[in-house]
């Protein structure tokens, strides 16, 4: 029940709405007691012979009037209560979304997308249900239940009432037992279903492998087995679920039998009239809903509480990276310097970065390479404050990167991440994602720089082509080039490319890099890459391994060192040239390669 307390802020804010709703429900409970009483009096009037057509007209008229009144009251509470729940859902959904926009990458590593989605859909729905059906069942079970019992005692006395209600506690006990069982079995069936889902997911996404390895019938067998498990667990749910109705109707039967038997005895002894018995029996049937509502209430509230707890827990999470200097909008500029005393990701147990001191000159082109897990991407993460840099001091132009607001910090960088991510929107909206007001000319200019303009024009709707689920699927290379265009459009002074060319062929890669290096726009360029040929033009190459800087210097100097860099460069010499993926074999590509090579020779 604590959910009503925890949602208190909402009820308080909309107190008038909920007051109106409760008033409606209470009035319905009271007004509905009237018709059975009218019928009983009518029966007594007939029995005693004092029945007239006036009494009949009055009774019928009043029953109709009550029907209409209840209709209007029901309209009222439905609008108020369900309307309120929708507003609550909206507010929580927005709050959750807003919260998500504030969370750092660490948060998204801890929580799976599916999990977060469950919060935003199922959990919000069950909180809504608590604020709608929950309130309804609470008020109805308490108010309507009390009203009916009160009316029963008032009409026929407490003895009759006790006899009639004897079977009800038994029912309440049984129903609560069933509910607990049902809950457990339902969860099992959900689990079985989710396994089935995974099975299908695997078969469909690996359809080529399934076919190539002739696994069709094996997959069908596994699926049939899992589908059987689903059927069995569903059957187990049904076995309990099917008990509810018979139990209720048996309760009503025993209650009815008891009250009629006892009622007959009282009538025999002149303690009660036939009309009163009629009224009583109708009241008895009105007890079913409040009892039912009571059982339902616990179910709804239990689920709602769990959901609200989950949502609140999520909302209570603070961003890993605090925006301490949120008001400082100062523009940082100058050399970037990392002074590392060692850094490890929370809970990882091993150091992602060890001790080093690295300076990246403003306006230079710096290449970073090394084995996976060497700490290259971590450098960028700490620079952008995606993680709290305990143990690493990052300064830009001598000022710590946490001395300004996150917003001001991010405004200085354009990042192209390893995994290209695009939104379900048009291509031009995607390119202009970081600069919503950009003109078509600006968009096309960066698209040309990123070598994607021609590809885009080849789509049916050009720049207006929709991407994502309802639109076109792009190749990995196309996606990557669009993210490059997107980063170029925001025109930041520091361009960070995290393995941003890995899906591109050499020719395109060389072309883009060449454009970037030879443009009039002075930029600091940090390029993380596995393809060392890219780094022949770099002002500085940094090789990282296991969190340490193992080699550092110009391309030439590193080749002379005969270390990892020289070794891999030679190995790639064989591979790349060949690996010159066939695409680069045409003449245009040759020129680009020659160009880079020429530049490298010049640099020498």
């Amino acid at each position, binding site marked *: 029940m604590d959910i009503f307390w925890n949602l208190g802020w909402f009820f308080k804010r909309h107190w008038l709405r909920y007051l109106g709703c409760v008033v409606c429900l209470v009035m319905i409970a009271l007004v509905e007691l009237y018709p059975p009483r009218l019928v009983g009096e009518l029966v007594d009037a007939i029995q005693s012979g004092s029945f007239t057509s006036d009494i009949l007209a009055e009774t019928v008229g009043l029953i109709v009037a009550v029907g209409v009144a209840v209709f209007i009251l029901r309209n009222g509470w*439905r609008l108020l209560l369900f309307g309120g729940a929708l507003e609550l859902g909206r507010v929580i959904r*927005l709050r959750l979304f807003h919260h998500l926009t504030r969370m750092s990458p660490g948060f998204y590593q801890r929580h799976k997308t599916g999990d977060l989605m469950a919060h935003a859909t199922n959990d919000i729905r069950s909180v809504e249900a608590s604020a709608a059906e929950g309130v309804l069942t609470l008020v109805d079970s308490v108010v309507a239940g009390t009203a009916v019992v009160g009316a029963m005692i008032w009409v026929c006395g407490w003895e009759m009432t006790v006899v009639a209600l004897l079977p009800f506690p038994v029912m309440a006990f049984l129903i609560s037992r069933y509910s607990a069982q049902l809950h457990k079995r339902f969860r099992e069936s959900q689990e079985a279903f989710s396994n089935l889902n995974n099975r299908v997911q695997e078969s469909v996404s690996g359809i080529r492998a399934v076919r190539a390895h002739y696994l069709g019938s094996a997959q069908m067998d596994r699926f049939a087995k899992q589908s059987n498990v689903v*059927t069995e667990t569903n059957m187990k749910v049904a076995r309990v679920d099917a008990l509810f109705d018979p139990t209720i109707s048996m309760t009503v039967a025993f209650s009815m039998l008891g009250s009629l038997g006892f009622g007959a005895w009282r009538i025999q002894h002149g303690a009660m009239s*036939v009309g009163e018995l009629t009224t009583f029996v*109708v009241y008895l*049937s009105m007890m079913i809903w409040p009892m039912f509502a009571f059982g339902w209430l616990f179910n709804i509230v239990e689920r709602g509480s769990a959901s609200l707890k989950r949502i609140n827990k999520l909302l209570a999470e603070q961003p890993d990276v605090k925006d301490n200097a949120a008001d400082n909008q100062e523009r940082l500029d100058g050399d970037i310097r990392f002074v590392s005393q060692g850094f490890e990701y929370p809970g990882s147990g091993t150091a992602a970065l060890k001790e080093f001191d690295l300076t990246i000159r403003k306006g230079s082109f710096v290449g970073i390479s090394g084995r996976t897990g060497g700490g290259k991407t971590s450098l960028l993460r700490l620079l952008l404050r995606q993680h709290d840099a305990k143990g690493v001091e990052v300064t830009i132009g001598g000022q710590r990167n946490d001395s300004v607001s996150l917003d001001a910090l991010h405004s200085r960088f354009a990042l192209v991440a390893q995994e290209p991510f695009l939104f379900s929107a048009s291509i031009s909206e995607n390119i202009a994602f*970081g600069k919503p007001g950009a003109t078509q000319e600006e968009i096309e200019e960066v698209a040309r720089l990123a070598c994607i303009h021609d590809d885009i024009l080849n789509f049916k709707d050009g720049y207006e082509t929709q991407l994502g689920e309802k639109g076109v699927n792009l190749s990995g290379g196309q996606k990557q080039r669009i993210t490059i265009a997107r980063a170029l459009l925001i025109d930041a002074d520091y361009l960070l490319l995290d393995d941003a060319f890995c899906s591109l062929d050499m020719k395109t890669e060389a072309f883009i890099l060449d454009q970037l290096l030879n443009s009039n726009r002075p930029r600091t360029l940090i390029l993380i890459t596995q393809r060392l040929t890219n780094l022949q033009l770099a002002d500085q190459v940094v090789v990282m391994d296991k969190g340490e800087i193992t080699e550092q210097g110009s391309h030439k100097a590193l*080749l002379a060192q005969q270390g990892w860099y020289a070794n891999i460069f030679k190995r790639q010499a064989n591979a790349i040239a060949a*690996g010159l993926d066939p695409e680069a074999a045409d003449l245009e590509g040759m020129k680009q390669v020659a160009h880079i090579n020429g530049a490298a020779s010049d640099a*020498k």
Partner: protein
Amino acid sequence: MQNNDMTNQVTQKQRFMRLLRYGLPYKGLFIISMVMMLLATGAGLYAPVVMKTFIDDHVVPGNWDHKAMMILGCIFITMYIIDAVLSWFQTMTFQKVALAVVHDIRRQVFNHLFRLPMAYFDREPVGRLVSRVTNDTETIRDLFVQALPQTLSSVVTLTGVVIAMFLLDQTLALYCVAIMPLVFLSIYLYRRFSKPVFHTSRAVLSDINTRINESIQGMAVVQALRQQKRVSEQFEDLNLKYKRVQTRLVMINALLRPTVHMSSAFALAFMVQGFAGPALVGPVEVGLLYAFINYLDRMFEPLTQVSMQMQVWQQAVVSSERVFELLDEEPEPAYEHLEHKPFKEGSIEFRDVELSYDGKNKALDGISFKAEPGQFIALVGHTGSGKSSVMNLLMRFYQHQKGEILIDGQPLASISESQLRQQLGLVFQEPFIFHGSVAENIHLYQSSQCKTDIQQAAECVQADRFIEQLPDTYDEVLGERGQSLSTGEKQLLSFARTMAQDPRILLLDEATANIDSETEQAIKEALFSLRQGRTTLAIAHRLTTIEDADLIMVMDKGKIVQRGTHTQLVNQPGLYRDMHEAQHNQLEIQEQLAS
């Protein structure tokens, strides 16, 4: 418009009949269930008549015959017990049928997926297909286990109540039934008005979910580009839109749902009028009033039920439409039944083969070549030049339009499915790891393979080294898509898989991904051992790996533009030599720099 609606209704009816046809194998159980339902309903409806006798024959006239009254009481309770017990068994029988039907539909949909041409999977996103097999069949399940039995029992109860009323007292029954048109009208109106709103609301909800999902996945981008505020605002627009649509649904509900209740009040008023009117002129039976009040309750219960099940019906019809759409997709020709003719040699021949995926552009144009048994043939060319299409045709993933493909001189289409899959070993560019143990991923559920076979296969391709490092070695369970393994390890695992399969023909799609140099060496050696004694067709991205090929085919725009051995190709002008020269230049410069 009217016409459209009509045809729409007709197809909806057909669709529904088609759904019901899945129940045919279970019609025996279904009939038993229906008989139980009729008996239970009859017993339940007879109980109030017993009580009526109790009141009218004993209580009202003051005839206190205790023995007769006890008997009536016993009959009353017995009726309820019969009702309760039969209802439970009836429900269980029905559930059994319903769940079996859903199981059948599900299996049919899932199995049908494997018969569809590969082009279908290129067209349909994975998520959508998964949803067809699981979520849509789940909605159909709701129809079978919930809406259908509820509706049936509602119809039976309603009919039973009306019959019982007419048997007891015709005039009174007429008064009660008079209210029915109002109820049906309100249900009709409810359907009419809620349906379009309901559809919009689902569409908006799905937009919202898509938006949240996408924002979660792309939050790093949103934050890096500082668009948190704009994205939040866009979300709020959708959120508000959803609330507005839902509010309309609430309003329709608020207006039309309580009409059933109001109708029941009116029915009571009518009945009182009908009951008490005659009392002005003569005696009436109070017990009759009891019975009718009881029946009235039962009469409105099924009506509320039916209106509540309406949404389930609507959703099930939409879902079945989607499911049937999938089931009606034309399957590929079946190769399962073909005669099992083992390959002896493993030669491959393409004769003037033409392939188009879309019917307009040719992906392959006049491809002819022959690979003699044991030869090593390499395909090189740009992305989109047609290399993969050659593989796709050989794997029978797609159907070519012109020409002939022969394996050991037999047309590809005459080779049985199991034979083809057994003898053609495809090594994927990105190997797919199944959920299961390492051993299962190697033997792929071929029960004929024992543990030593598996280990041998792994050793041959040097996969044993990393497998031995795993905590549970060969029994280590690999999660979804083998996330715990590196790209190189996945490659090696898939080599072991092919080694265990021991095919006559090897199809290699070389990986382009960056793999650390140690693993790369292992992969190179593994590929060499894989090739031994097999006809090999390889898509090469690294030219160094194919210098010893018996034949290299250079592809461009769906055609083979050059063919020959490495030495031959290097000595003639063309694409291949350009590539080779580039390689040469590159090496020279690098050596220069290194010195």
